[in-house]
């Protein structure tokens, strides 16, 4: 319960104080219930930076620079796509749950949830919270939000995640309780409540020119492609923010974000290059923070076509990779090595499997066995993410040592992800942090929509269904271990590293969490930040 600590309201009216105290107490009770009934709600790690940073100071405006989507930006939280969209959405809105540092769902607007015995009906209880216009957040709003996300005429990003819900059969039990009926048993359904873009908006809301949410900040003014100004929500259920105002400014060029920070024009800059970070780390002018495990980096091998339809060739490629060299070369050392498994540091991650290292002798032997000596493969890549082209070049040289010729083909960065989904045989790949369950359901099942390794296996699908029908957490953990052992042994993902996400702040900025991968609850959580 360390996260829910009473906050001392400074300078607030008496009415505000008593109300906040009530909400905080309610929150503690609710969270206790939540943990009790799910039997598995992990606590996020302690908020880094809280000890030793002194007492939070109230006041001031924090300006945060992000790369953005230009003059076309909207504040519709369900359209969130870029990091800046998510950061803005979480300042204005809440989800029912969000991901902790280990990507396990943490209750937010939900006070708790409980499934029925067959895991296909979930009751979600809401904590007392209000929208910025004073209306309470009710079960009606929750159902409306999920139905809007699932609208077949729209293409909201969270739609895929909410596909498991039978929207017609789901219902309001009472104003503070929603019952979700699911199409199939789904033990990790709370992941859907925390899904990317699954924000709760007021029932009927469809225009977000002046967004009304329940989040820690209230809308002030918006200039698309340029800036968004927000004010503190004094009545926020999780404690009012320390900052008076929060301003998001858009700067597409990394050098511009760095310069604006160095020049005192902003106090927070999102997404810096490892090279920039190294120049300024320890220099004293700005504070560089590395958010570990934020982006998985690797290659996808198409398992349904030659040469990768032979598991020995896949295994050989995994043994060719010198992971340290890839991390040092392609990420300038800003990351950790991977073990061909998604979700390092996440709940259910099979950390017990031995770390794979380069073994060229064994790789050559496997290729010989498979009749694939002197193999030539085309590796598709594009400057679609940091380090892609560099990693492809490094891997090409590593492969040459095993007698494999890799031809690097550089594609168009704007259409890259669609281009590599079905075409080619080998391609650069990255992914932001998400629960292992989401990675599996989106990318590794026969019906998965973004199955870039073309991994289709009935036994594997069945194992996933079995996990989702298993109420007991310990049994699920064992099943996940079995699943990952199989992927580690013969999967199509060659995961060589996990990149840090680098942000930098002015030295007087306090309370920025460092243990939260990008996209998790404590990442870009400006309600907990203050200016020292």
């Amino acid at each position, binding site marked *: 319960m360390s996260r829910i600590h009473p906050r001392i309201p400074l300078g607030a009216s008496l009415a505000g104080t008593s109300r906040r105290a009530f909400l905080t107490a309610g929150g503690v009770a609710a969270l206790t219930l939540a943990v009790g009934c799910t039997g598995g709600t992990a606590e996020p790690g302690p908020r880094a930076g809280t000890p030793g940073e002194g007492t939070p100071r109230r006041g001031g405006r924090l300006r945060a620079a992000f790369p953005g989507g230009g003059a076309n930006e909207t504040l519709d939280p369900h359209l969130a796509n870029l990091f800046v969209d998510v950061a803005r959405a979480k300042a204005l809105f809440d989800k029912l749950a969000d991901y902790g540092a280990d990507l396990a769902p943490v209750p937010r607007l939900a006070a708790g949830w409980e499934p029925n015995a067959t895991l296909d009906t979930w009751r979600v209880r809401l904590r007392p919270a209000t929208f910025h216009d004073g209306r309470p957040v009710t079960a009606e709003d929750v159902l409306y939000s999920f139905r809007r996300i699932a609208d077949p*005429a729209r293409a909201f990003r969270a739609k895929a995640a909410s596909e498991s819900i039978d929207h017609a059969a789901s219902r309001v039990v009472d104003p503070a309780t929603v019952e979700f009926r699911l199409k199939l048993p789904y033990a990790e359904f709370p992941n859907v409540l925390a899904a990317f873009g699954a924000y709760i908006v007021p029932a009927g809301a469809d225009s977000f020119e002046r967004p009304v949410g329940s989040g820690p900040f209230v809308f002030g003014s918006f200039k698309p492609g340029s*800036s968004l100004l927000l004010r503190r929500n004094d009545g926020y259920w999780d404690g009012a923010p320390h900052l008076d105002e929060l301003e998001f400014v858009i700067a597409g060029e990394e050098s511009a974000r760095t310069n604006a920070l160095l020049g005192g024009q902003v106090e927070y800059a999102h997404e810096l290059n490892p090279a920039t970070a190294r120049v300024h780390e320890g220099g004293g002018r700005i504070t560089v923070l590395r958010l570990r495990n934020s982006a998985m980096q690797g290659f996808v091998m198409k398992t349904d076509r030659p040469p990768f339809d032979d598991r020995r060739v896949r295994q050989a490629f995994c043994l060719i990779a010198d992971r340290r060299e890839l991390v040092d070369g392609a990420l300038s050392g800003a990351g950790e090595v991977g073990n061909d498994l998604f979700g390092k540091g996440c709940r259910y991650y099979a950390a017990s499997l031995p770390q794979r290292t380069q073994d060229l002798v064994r790789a050559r032997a496997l290729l010989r066995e498979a009749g694939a000596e002197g193999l030539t493969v085309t590796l598709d890549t594009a400057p679609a993410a940091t380090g892609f082209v560099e990693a492809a070049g490094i891997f090409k040289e590593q492969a040459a040592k095993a007698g494999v010729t890799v031809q690097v083909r550089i594609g168009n960065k704007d*259409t890259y992800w669609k281009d590599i989904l079905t075409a080619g045989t080998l391609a650069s790949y990255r992914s932001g942090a998400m629960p292992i369950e989401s990675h599996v359901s989106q990318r590794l099942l026969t019906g998965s929509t973004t199955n870039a390794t073309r991994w289709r296996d009935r036994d594997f699908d069945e194992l996933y269904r079995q996990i989702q029908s298993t109420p007991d957490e310990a049994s699920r953990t064992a099943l996940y271990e079995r699943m990952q052992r199989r992927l580690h042994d013969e999967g199509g993902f060659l995961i060589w590293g996990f990149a840090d996400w680098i942000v930098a702040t002015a030295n007087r900025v306090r309370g920025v969490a460092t243990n939260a991968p990008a996209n998790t609850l404590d990442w870009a959580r400006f309600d907990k930040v203050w200016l020292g």
Partner: protein
Amino acid sequence: MSADRGRPARRLLLGPVQIAAVVVLIFALTEALPGDAAVALAGDQPDPERIARIRESMGLDRSMGGRFGAWVERLAHGDLGTSLVSGRPVADLLADGFGPTLVLAGVTVVLLVPLSVGLGVLAARREGGPVDRLISALTSAVHAVPEFALGVLLITLFALELRWLPPTAVGTDGDLLGRPAVLVLPVVVLLSRPVCTIARLVRAGMIDAMASPYVAHARRQGLSGARVCWTHALPNALAPATQQLARTCDWLLSGVIVVEALFVVPGLGTVLVDAVAARDIPVIQGLALVFGVVTVSVNLVADLVTLRLAPRVEVAA
């Protein structure tokens, strides 16, 4: 004489033809971009069903001919269409970006003419002397530095080390005139190359003109050196410079793309870069059309001015 009068008229008529060609070309080129807005928007979640849905909602599933017809028809009514991504009218997006770009380009042009002409004349009047050699050396050197490199250098020196000027226009929301300090470095970067080019052209033109028989004649008439220089030699020297100035205005439209990105100015260059990345075709087309019309008009004006400044150019032609 009739040929003399016919030429400006023919030049005027060419304008609309060029613009029509630009309209067709823009459509053809945007069609040739790999991928469409649906693919760009889907990003790293390229679920085929989702892409199909986005495509449908954007009307991208219609035939190419149908889309071209609809676009031209709307253009004829002065409607640039709506952004695929945000649904905002393209005209609004352009209007938002137009102000900052106009301020950047306008201030640059206003400073460019006196600066480059002054430097050129100064060098020509001191031909071969130390001032001329200094100006020539500087203009050659600065001209060789790409805008991006110069910008980074200036920011590092004047904004981050000396702290005399702000490094970016972040936080101005495009109101550059309200905070003139943010304009200094971007304008210097935009000025750097055209000043060099035009100053060298003016210098060469002035040296030629000063050596010409009619200037010698004017001198024999007893006119002062300054009067000969400014009223007799300069207009002739300016003819090639006017053409270059027109080309510079075209160039400024692309120069602002680099400068806007470097200094975070929310102008047309930024709108274009974002629109291309998002494959937001109506916005790209609207912008290309505006850029095309501006280019055609500026060159039209420049040609007419040249004809007026130095009629002999066309007589000789």
